[in-house]
């Protein structure tokens, strides 16, 4: 583990900010001097996981780089809700070019910094899952294989939300979207499709790959901070619920994200040079149904119950738990 987990049993969560901790152990978000890189006043929906993820991640990068940061943004919700001209929620130098080129644009920023000898300034590129796993994938793979000094952050809300909830290569099995409608036989997104970008990133052999969740702020910040201690191509894939597209309660965003982790559907891992080096163990695996039932995009699985699909999704979670040994049997596998 990249940090010592402290659980507060009063609330049962790893609550944001945790002011019960010693000051040194508090999150960046809990500090008075956080930079509010993505400032308040932007136009994200209630309960937007992506807005939280971006704020958490970029404030941690700012702290790690002593505010020497340039951010590049792909087209998408994050770009649109943060920058309707002439307003901007960004307190950092920020460049938006296109939907599919953020990794290449960031490579260019990094190259200019090398040319000018300003390597104290660091570069983060960010985009949603559509920008990352689909339309920008070529540029992302190029940035990885060149090992350009860029941290790329994917905020994965598992569909094209900005255009009104359409399927992406990251949309989970059986999920309703507007292009995987919950009608006909086998409603929702097809089973057995989609891509796992953290593993594809690992296959490039880049220095650092991690997954994180807005449900675990300490872990997210620790991974972002660690990534900034490394030079070269780095990739962090953050799971960010979207109440609009997932048809979940905006007040339940953190809970939904937490259940994705605790069910095993979204494993939290770290990898260096293509090898998994760490994972966050699950104290008690919850059935995937608990996670799915909170989201209207899966309601067709329950009325009537679609046992084969539920079993398939449970098998995916179990597969992740097996793959990363997320529920260690005794003796404990904590390294």
């Amino acid at each position, binding site marked *: 583990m990249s940090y010592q987990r402290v659980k507060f049993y009063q609330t049962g969560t790893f609550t944001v900010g945790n002011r019960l901790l010693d000051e040194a152990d508090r999150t960046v978000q809990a500090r008075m001097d956080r930079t509010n890189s993505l400032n308040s006043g932007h136009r994200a929906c209630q309960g937007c996981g992506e807005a939280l993820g971006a704020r958490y991640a970029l404030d941690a990068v700012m702290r790690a780089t002593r505010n020497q940061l340039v951010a590049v943004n792909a087209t998408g919700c994050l770009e649109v809700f943060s920058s309707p*001209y002439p307003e901007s929620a960004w307190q950092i*130098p920020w460049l938006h*070019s296109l939907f599919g*080129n953020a990794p290449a644009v960031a490579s*260019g920023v990094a190259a200019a910094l090398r040319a000018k000898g300003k390597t104290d300034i660091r570069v983060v590129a960010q985009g949603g899952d559509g920008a990352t796993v689909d339309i920008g994938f070529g540029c992302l793979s190029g940035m990885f294989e*060149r090992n350009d000094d860029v941290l790329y952050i994917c905020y994965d809300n598992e569909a094209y939300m900005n255009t009104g909830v359409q399927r992406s290569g990251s949309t989970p099995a059986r999920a309703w979207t507007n292009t995987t409608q919950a009608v006909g036989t086998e409603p929702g997104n097809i089973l057995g499709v989609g891509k796992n970008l953290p593993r594809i990133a690992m296959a490039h052999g880049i220095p650092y790959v991690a997954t994180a969740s807005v449900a675990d702020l300490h872990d997210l910040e620790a991974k972002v901070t660690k990534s900034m201690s490394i030079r070269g191509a780095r990739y962090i894939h953050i799971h960010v619920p979207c109440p609009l597209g997932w048809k979940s309660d905006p007040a339940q965003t953190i809970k939904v994200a937490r259940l994705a982790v605790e069910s095993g559907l979204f494993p939290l891992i770290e990898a260096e040079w293509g090898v998994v080096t760490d994972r966050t163990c699950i104290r008690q695996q919850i059935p995937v149904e608990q996670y799915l039932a909170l989201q209207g995009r899966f309601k067709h699985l329950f009325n009537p119950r679609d046992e084969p699909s539920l079993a398939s999704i449970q098998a995916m979670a179990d597969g992740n738990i097996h793959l990363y040994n997320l529920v260690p049997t005794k003796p404990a596998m904590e390294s």
Partner: protein
Amino acid sequence: MKQQVEGSQAVAQAVALCRPEVMACYPISPQTHIVETLSRKVKAGEIGNCQFLNVESEFGALSVLIGASAMGARTYTATTSQGLLFMAEAIYNAAGLGLPIVMTIANRALGAPINIWNDHSDSMAMRDAGWIQLYAEDNQEAVDLHIQAFRLAEELSCPVMVCMDGYILTHAFEAVDLPEQEQVDAYLPLFEPVQLLDPQDPVSIGAMVGPDAFAEVRYLAHHKHLQALEAIPRMSQEFQDMFHRTSGGLLKLYHTDDAETLLLALGSVNGTIKDAVDDLREEGWPVGSIQLCSYRPFPSQALRHVVHNAKRVVVIEKDLAVGQGGMVSSDVKMALRGLPTIVDTVIAGLGGRAISKASVIDTVKAACLEGLEEPHFLDLNWVAINRELTRQAEQRRSGPAPENLLREMGLSGGKTV
């Protein structure tokens, strides 16, 4: 110093003299020799601390430059044809963001059918993207236009394409006068960006603009091109003062003063056209020619001023607006509206078809004596076309037309139907 050098090598040396800081490149013929040479120069440490990135696509190449330019670096790439189209989204984006990127276009046809030889279909497809487009007549001008292009781009904060005919120029060995580093340094000041990604002074670049201001932002892009109409001749003049040769400008004129018929073209075909003008004049035809060096911005006023006494302008263009005719001649007609001048469109040189002096002379005579159909296709094999049209009319599943045509023309094996 004068050297006998390949066009691509000359351009690479000129670009190196401009001290680029970031180059991102992707191979595509006939542009590749340029970036190969630049990659060697960067690796050998001949271009300061310049960064050379081998990227995964042309779209990636221009995207890298967008980031680097916004970070304040002088940026360069080269492409052509399909590569330019693959960049298309970033082409518009770079112009919209007002980033002074310089790019060489080694002009080449667009497929299908795939064709690697020269015409202007590629850069013409991007003519309205907001980039300045300069077309070189020969390799000396290609060299000189690159030096002017960096200055023009950076003064206006507007990207510039320097277009040179693929193979005809890129692969031609000619005597080229390559300037000294001190001369180029004196002509081309350091890049001072108008917008910059700077942690000390954070700004948001590339924000969303709605209906309330979008038209005004677009007007400003147009206004830049209006400024370029003044800046291009000024920089050409200053270049002449410093380097003692004429290169660039909006138009270059050849025997236009007393001409009743003017030929107008872009790029290397102007050499052939000037030879045709000489021959026609010897026969007593009052003709002249205009090289359109700046296609975007389009120098309407300058052209109108040159043409106003002529009876006829014959536009010879290496592109085809399918379903319409000629792109350049449309712009010429727009520029000359209200004048009695006849404007003919001659579609020529597509996919590398040679434009011969004899064909140019015959076409000019035909235009003057009988008039031309609109548009006129130079040296088209009507026999083969009519046979293929007949085949298609008779047979629903007539197969791939290019292959049929090649058979008709006896250019490939297989049975002739």
